[in-house]
């Protein structure tokens, strides 16, 4: 059962896909997974295109979907420490897993802000645009989010072992 091809959706996809892919790849840490995740986000947009196309900030909406899907995916399928064994990579992966575990405990907007800022490498202004809040609010989310991460026992333990 197909979905009607929508030229306006296609144009939006072709112009915005690279940015969604970039964000997904940065959060997941691999391009192939990023591609799959970006496709999933766009397919959700297409499934409700009649509504999404009317959104004033639909680009931001899509990036939020990408962010949330990426967080969910990392929670379900954490990146494996795959052979060949590389100590640096293993250490980075462990650290990443610990951060992700701690992120799950943060409120949603703090989690989104931290992921976009530090995993997606977005500027504060860009995060503000994606979350549709002011830069000041983003800074507040980041400050509280980072404070929450610093206070997380798992991360304290990670640091303590080094």
């Amino acid at each position, binding site marked *: 059962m197909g979905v009607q*091809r929508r030229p*306006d959706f296609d144009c939006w996809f072709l112009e915005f896909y*690279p940015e969604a892919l970039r964000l997904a790849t940065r959060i997941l840490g691999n391009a192939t997974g990023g591609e799959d995740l970006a496709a999933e986000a766009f397919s959700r947009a297409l499934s409700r295109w*009649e509504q999404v196309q*009317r959104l004033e900030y639909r680009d931001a909406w899509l990036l939020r979907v990408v962010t949330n899907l990426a967080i969910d995916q990392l929670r379900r399928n954490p990146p494996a420490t795959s052979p060949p064994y590389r100590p640096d990579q293993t250490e980075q992966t462990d650290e990443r897993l610990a951060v992700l575990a701690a992120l799950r405990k943060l409120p949603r907007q703090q989690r989104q802000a931290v992921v976009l800022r530090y995993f997606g490498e977005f500027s504060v202004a860009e995060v503000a645009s994606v979350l549709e809040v002011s830069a000041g609010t983003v800074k507040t989310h980041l400050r509280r989010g980072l404070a929450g991460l610093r206070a997380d026992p798992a991360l304290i333990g990670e640091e303590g072992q080094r």
Partner: protein
Amino acid sequence: VRTSLSAPGDRTPAEVLDEVYRRAGRRRARRRSAAILAATLVIGAAVPITALSLAAHTPPRVVVPTGPKVAGGLPVWTPPRKPARAAPAVFVDGDNYGGIGVWSMKTGTLIRTLSQTNVGPDQQPVLSADRRTVYFAQPEGDCASVIRSVPITGASAPVTVISVPRMLALEPSPSPDGRELAWVGVTCHGKRLTARLYITNLASGARTSLGLFSGELSDDGIAWSPDGRQLAVEDAKTIAVLDLDRAAPFNHALHLPLGPGCAASDPAFLPGSGLLAINETCLSVESTVSSSRALAVSSATGRPVALIAAAPKGASFVALSVDRSGQHILLGVVSSADQGTGSYAAEVIHGKLVTIGIAPSAEEW
């Protein structure tokens, strides 16, 4: 469909785009199955059913109450009563197989297919005022589409009536006398789309630009007045009316009292009343539909004068068509709950939605 965009993964953006459509199709199929089951359960609880079929092509006729007679200070719209005219027997829509189809109002089923898809499904079908010709948009690749016409009888193959290189020709809307076609031409350049509203003389091919178009490029963005002297078009979040009698078409946006997050779309003139029928859709902060209503508004001011129908919870109106008598209104309804879509056609009868059948969401009389 190939593009020059580079991607760090294994697939090109065009291949990912195909995957996006496949996933959306699977999601839609799941949603549709769930919608049929849900409708069956509701009907079973509400009314005695003598014969009920679960098959998608033989949906039951369902009456969905749309609320009290007076909603938000607005009376419920009542059609002009005399002389009473029967509703059109058929409507046009997608055929669920990528082409354009003719559907029965009585049974809600596809009667015949009028076109075969090209590179992407045909879309935005609309009937001429004499109900003999169907116009539709047919994709032709990256940011290109043509407008074609075909007899509603299917007696001959579709022919191209609008084709401009590297332009999306969308939203065909034939004038009441059948001599002109209003449409939207979209050019894709860089990160922006530029959409212009055009009128083409179908005999000479002469094209006139009426300026930029800021509607949503979905179905039903343009409507002719019955006398052919005005166009109602989607204009950002509201509706604008263009007076075509003037040397330079005069455009005035209606001052619809839209709330935050609300937009008006799908204008259609209600003949002999000085009113427009529109759909008003409001989104919540979470970008889900919080309310969707069909309203009758003044074509001069935009002031709402009556509630035509309110969409059931979790659904929204995405298409609106008025027959020539102004007595019958056809709505395309999409269930927007969760991430999926289930769409159906419904007629407004005495302020209530009467389901005609499960169909794509571009219904037109």
